[in-house]
C-alpha cells in the first residue's frame, strides 16, 4: 500500500486552506475594491481594466473634509467631521440605551414572566416585521407634532426603539440558557434579587451582550431611511451625507466616495474586531451543553 502522510485530526491541509482563502477573498473583494479606489486618483479610479498597481494618493481623504465645491473657489470644510460625530453619537447612544433597557426587559421576560409573556414578546417583534418605510409616515407626523424632527433626542429615541425588539429577543435567549441553580445558590447565599441579576446572571451573558451590541451597531450605523427624513443639517448622519455627495458637476467622484466609505466602515470594523472573541462565544452560546 502506498504510504500517505497522516495528518492530525482537526488540521486542514494546504488545499483546503487555499480554497477557503479564495472563497473569503470573493466575499472581501468589494470591500477591498473600495479601499483600493479610495487611494486612487480620479483617472486611476476610472481606468479599465482595473488597476491593481498604482501610485496611492491621500487626496481623496483630504477632500472628504476639505474640498472645492464652487468652480474656481477655495477649498472649504465639508462638515463631515460633524456628520461622523453625529453617526457615532447617535448610533452609540441609542445602541447602548437599547442594550441597557433591552437587558433589563429581557431579564424580566426570562425570569419573571407575565401572564401572556409570549404575546408581549411577539408584539414587541411586530414592529420589526414591516419595512421601515411603511412606519415612516406616522413617525414623521409624530416627530413634527412633538418638534422632534432634526433633534438628537428624536433620532436617538427612534433608534433606541428600533433596536429594542432585537436586543430584548437576543439577550433573553442568553438569559434563558443560564443554569438556574446558580441563581438559587446565590439566593441561598443571601443575595437579593438585584444582586442575583447583577453579580450572577449579568457576568455570564457578557459575551451575548457583546454580540447583541455588535449586531445593533451594524444595523444602526448603516441606517438610512429614518436618518434621511428625520435628521436636520446639524444632526445628519454619514449615510445621508454620502448619498448627498454622489453627483456634482463632474459626475460621480468614485475616489471621494470610496474614501468616505473607507472611513465609514472603520468604526464598525474596530468594534467587531475588539469584540470578536466575545462575538464568537455569543453566537455559539447555548450550543454547547454542560
Amino acid at each position: 500500500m502506498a504510504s500517505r502522510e497522516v495528518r492530525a485530526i482537526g488540521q486542514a491541509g494546504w488545499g483546503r486552506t487555499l480554497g477557503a482563502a479564495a472563497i473569503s477573498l470573493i466575499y472581501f473583494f468589494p470591500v477591498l475594491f473600495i479601499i483600493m479606489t479610495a487611494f486612487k486618483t480620479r483617472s486611476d479610479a476610472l481606468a479599465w481594466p482595473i488597476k491593481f498597481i498604482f501610485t496611492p494618493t491621500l487626496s481623496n481623504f483630504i477632500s472628504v473634509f476639505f474640498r472645492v465645491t464652487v468652480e474656481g473657489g477655495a477649498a472649504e470644510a465639508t462638515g463631515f467631521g460633524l456628520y461622523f460625530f453625529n453617526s457615532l453619537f447617535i448610533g452609540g447612544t441609542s445602541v447602548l440605551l437599547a442594550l441597557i433597557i433591552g437587558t433589563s426587559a429581557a431579564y424580566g421576560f426570562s425570569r419573571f414572566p407575565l401572564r401572556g409573556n409570549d404575546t408581549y414578546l411577539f408584539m414587541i417583534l411586530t414592529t420589526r416585521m414591516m419595512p421601515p418605510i411603511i412606519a415612516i409616515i406616522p413617525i414623521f407626523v409624530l416627530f413634527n407634532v412633538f418638534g422632534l424632527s432634526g433633534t438628537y433626542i428624536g433620532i436617538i429615541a427612534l433608534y433606541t426603539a428600533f433596536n429594542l425588539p432585537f436586543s430584548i429577543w437576543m439577550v433573553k435567549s442568553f438569559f434563558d440558557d443560564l443554569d438556574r441553580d446558580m441563581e438559587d445558590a446565590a439566593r441561598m447565599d443571601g443575595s437579593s434579587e438585584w444582586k442575583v441579576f447583577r453579580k450572577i446572571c449579568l457576568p455570564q451573558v457578557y459575551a451575548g451582550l457583546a454580540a447583541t451590541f455588535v449586531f445593533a451597531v451594524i444595523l444602526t450605523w448603516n441606517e438610512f431611511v429614518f436618518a434621511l427624513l428625520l435628521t436636520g443639517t446639524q444632526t445628519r448622519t454619514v449615510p445621508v451625507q454620502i448619498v448627498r455627495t454622489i453627483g456634482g458637476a463632474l459626475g460621480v467622484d468614485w475616489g471621494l466616495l470610496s474614501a468616505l466609505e473607507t472611513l465609514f466602515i472603520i468604526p464598525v470594523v474596530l468594534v467587531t474586531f475588539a469584540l470578536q472573541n466575545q462575538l464568537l462565544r455569543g453566537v455559539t452560546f447555548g450550543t454547547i451543553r454542560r
Partner: protein
Amino acid sequence: MSEIRLQQLTKRFQNLLAVDRVDLEVAPGEVMCLLGPSGCGKTTTLRMIAGLESATDGNILIAGKRVNDLPARERNVAMTFQFYALYPSLTVAENLAYPLHADGLSRTQINERIAQVSKVLDLEGILKRRPHQLGEGEKQRVAVGRSIVRQPTCFLFDEPLSRLDIQLRQQMRTQIKEVLEKLDKPTVIVTHDQIEALTMADRIAVMRDGRIEQVATPHDLFAYPVNTFVAGFIGTPQMNLVEATLRAVEDGPDGTARGRFDLLGESFAARVEPGVRRLPAGGRVTLGVRPRSFVLAPPGGEETLRATLDLVEPMGAELLLHLLQHGSDLRCVVRHTTRVTVGETVGLRCKPGQLHVFDENGALVQ
C-alpha cells in the same frame, strides 16, 4: 436547638401533587437522606426547605420557627447543588467568600474562614482558579466548602455525588461524612442512590409519589421494610418478591412460628414472624427474600424451593444466580467458589428469620 420539622408539607404544581402531606423531623447533628426514584418529590421537598419553592400547604419549621414565608436568603440554610452551581465568573476563593459578603463579615474574618474551610476540604492549591479550570471532584469540594463556610442553621445536599466517578464518589462520601459529623446541624441529603443513602445517613426517608413510605435507620430499613415498595427499592441485588397463598401457620421449635405457603402450586415452609399468625389461612401474601438470604440446598423437602438455574452473573467475590421457579425469576447470591451449571435444578432454602411476609396490601407483617 436547630432542628428541621416538616408538618403535612404539600406541594401542588397545577394538577400534579408533587409532595403529599409529608411529616418529617431532622434532629441537630442528624443526617437524613431523602431517597426515592426520580419524580418522587424528594428534590421538591428539599427546595421547599431551602425556600426556593413555596409550599402549597403545611409547615416548615427550622429551629422552631415557621419559615414558610421567608425568602431563601433570609432562612440561613446552606445548600449544595447537583451541578455544583459555582459562580463561573468568580475564583474559588471568591466563590467561598460570596455567602460571607452577604453576612457582612470583615475582610480579615472572611479570609480566616476561607483558610479554615480550604484546609478542611483540601482546597488550598486551587483558590485562585475559576470553576471551569477544576475537575469534578474539586468542583464538588468547592461546592461543599461554599455551604459550610458560613454558619447556617442546616445543610441541604441535592444529589451531591451523582456527577462523580465511582472512585471519587467513595472518597467524597467519606469526606462529606467526616465534615458533617463535626457540624452539629441537621442535614438533609437528596439522593436516588441507595448506597449513598445507606452509607451517609443516620436515618433514611424513602419517598414514592410525593409521600414518605418509611423513615428508619439504614439497618431497620434493610431489615424491616414496611412494605413491598421499600423492600424492593432498598438492597442490591433487589429483594425477591413472590406472590403466594398462606396455607397455615404452625408452631415451630422454641415457640417460633412456621408458615406454610403455596407458591405457584409448590408448597414451601419457613420460619415467619409471629404476626403472621393473625393472617387468614388461604389469604394472598407476598413473600420477600433477599438474594443473600437464600442458600442452595439439594432439591426436595418442604423447606426448599425447586428452581432451574438460568443465568450466572459473576460479581467478584460472589455469583448472582438467576433462577426460574415456575416461570418467576428468583435471584440468589452465593460465594464465587460455588460450583453450579446452567440448566441444573437446585433447591433454595431461606435462612431462618430472613423471610419477610407482606399482607395483601403489601404491608410488612411482624
